């Protein structure tokens, strides 16, 4: 099997567990994001793949070969660190040429490759500039160029954009994605910003509480979160408790019943957690409760210009609905309003 395979990978520091039960198959040529809150073990996982941390258990295989015991400098992976770690005592050209120098590439070939890469990142005139004289975005690009100079099999990025300001970050996200696609290089990126993951990744691996919570494409994860953790972390959501009533219905705390697609294996009376995304809720003029249309009261309104967030209290649950100005009809706190929860938009989350 080609690609990178992690099997039962785990890491302990003494009695504390950093990450465990990691089983992943990362196909070639894709951009994979390790996404999760801080402390969930995503950086540890990346560093284990890089060879900068040892494995406490499990195996890492690349194209069938076990690389778990290979030292970092023999793995031929490119890595961009959070602090970029450009060598301050070398110029831009020397930094990029360093991996080639280590591999005994001739001076002429080194020069040619450096020129080629600088052209790729559009910094051709910076070849002799000392690193300290570059801007944040320029350093970012040099770090990436240096990492791919030796044509590594895998590119690893550790929160590469966290030090940049918002506007630069967004343009770099696109640039990195385009570069990765152009080179068709397998890339693993660690981030805690779910919007970044959604923008850039082919595959998202959601990590939480030291284990893998879900693996899938960004849209899969958004539309069909595997559990409450993922639902809560990706996008904003309305997660509320309910009781299974049988016959494809659930009961809300306030007493009303909703028709939802529910697995028949769920026992009547069982407590479940439900998810509905704010943009799926429909607000309308107050009418009596019927089917999946509940009557409630507005408790908070937030008009951010492009969208309006309305918080409604109904049937013992607080829902936040998202609407555009043309959909809205001027609600304020205290107004009664009807909220429709379309059945197909409601998701049961595994407990």
């Amino acid at each position, binding site marked *: 099997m080609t690609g990178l395979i992690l099997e039962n990978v785990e890491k302990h520091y003494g009695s504390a567990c950093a990450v465990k039960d990691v089983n992943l198959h990362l196909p070639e040529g894709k951009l994979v994001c390790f996404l999760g809150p801080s402390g969930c073990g995503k950086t540890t996982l990346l560093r284990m793949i890089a060879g900068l941390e040892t494995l406490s258990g499990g195996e890492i295989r690349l194209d069938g070969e076990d690389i778990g015991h290979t030292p970092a*400098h*023999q793995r*031929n992976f490119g890595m961009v660190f959070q602090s970029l770690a450009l060598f301050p005592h070398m110029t831009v050209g020397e930094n990029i040429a360093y991996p080639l120098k280590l591999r005994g590439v001739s001076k002429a070939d080194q020069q040619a490759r450096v020129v080629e890469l600088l052209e*790729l990142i559009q910094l051709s005139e910076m070849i002799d500039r000392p690193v300290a004289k570059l801007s944040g975005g320029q350093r970012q690009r040099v770090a990436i160029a240096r990492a791919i100079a030796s*044509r590594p099999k895998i590119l690893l990025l550790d929160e590469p954009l966290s030090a940049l300001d918002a506007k630069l970050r967004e343009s770099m996200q696109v640039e990195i994605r385009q570069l990765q696609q152009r080179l068709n290089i397998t890339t693993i990126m660690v981030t805690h910003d779910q919007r970044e993951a959604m923008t850039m990744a082919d595959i998202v691996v959601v990590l939480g509480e030291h284990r893998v919570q879900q693996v899938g494409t960004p849209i899969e994860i958004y539309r069909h979160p595997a559990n409450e953790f993922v639902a809560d972390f990706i996008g904003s959501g309305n997660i509320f408790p309910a009781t299974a009533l049988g016959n494809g219905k659930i009961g809300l705390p306030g007493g009303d019943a909703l028709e939802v697609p529910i697995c028949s294996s769920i026992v009547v009376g069982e407590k479940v957690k439900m998810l509905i995304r704010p943009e799926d809720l429909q607000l309308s003029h107050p009418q009596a409760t019927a089917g999946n249309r509940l009557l409630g009261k507005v408790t908070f309104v937030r008009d951010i210009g492009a969208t309006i967030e309305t918080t409604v209290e109904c049937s013992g649950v607080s829902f936040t609905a998202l609407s555009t100005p043309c959909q809205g009809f001027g609600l304020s706190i205290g107004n009664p309003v009807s909220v429709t929860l379309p059945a197909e938009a409601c998701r049961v989350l595994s407990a």
Partner: protein
Amino acid sequence: MEHQPLTHPVVAAPVRTNRGVSPTTRAWIFLSPSMLFLGVLIAASLLVLRMSVGTKGAEWTGFSLASYAQLLEPYYLKSLLLTLRLALISAVIAVVLAIPVAYTMSRLTSPFVRRIFLAAVLLPLLVNLLLQSYGWLVILGPGGMLNQALMGLGLIKRPIMLLYNQNGVLMGLVQTAFPLAVLPIASAMRGVARTYEEAAATLGASRLQVFRQVVLPMSMPGIITGATLVFAYNASSFVVPLLLGGRRVPMLAVMVHDQIAPLMNWPAASAAGVVLIVTTLAIMTLSEYITGRRRRMLEASQ
């Protein structure tokens, strides 16, 4: 541009396991040369310990506690108490003087002034103790600067004896160990972020209050370290009491030397040496205990 895997492998050598030496072993290998030299200190202590229970004439083979018994004689006890007292007083004075200097140093912005300050602070520590004692001889002598100044101010009528007694020695001790107090305190104060002072100011504290109630308590570990260093350094001070005190200020280190030359009483010298070592270690341990607790307290609140 196509992305091809590199045709030359990174290293032609076969894959080695990562399990070489454990990090602990590796670290201690790096530390071994220094530990070797520091080990000399440990060995020296043990050596001196052994010698202190030897007898004169049969130094390595004999065994007796006579040297320690000798230390309990009033002459030596006085010397021990004198040493401890002078060390303690000098530590207190040095720290008190060091605090404003350390504070200024930690808040300076101009690099040039900073360098002057640092040079001025380091000089007393590094420059030959001998030379500085000579300078003190000039300052403290009957015709010296201090006496002339005091007489000029009308505070005294005749020159006072500052040399060859405890006062002169005390001044010398404070001055030479002063840098040992300043550096840790300055380092601690630099660690007290300016934002704390600014926060206190917004809550209504005056500059003096801010200093007393915010900066000072937060720099306590540095202050204790400074006091400890000065105490330990001065307890074993040799040149200063020798040159500035003459025969009148027999601090322990001078005692040790006297036992060797002219008395050639190695066991007695060693016994005094052991007392010095024990005192030093006791102070260091105590201070480490106190600063450890405070440091944990500070860290917990951040």
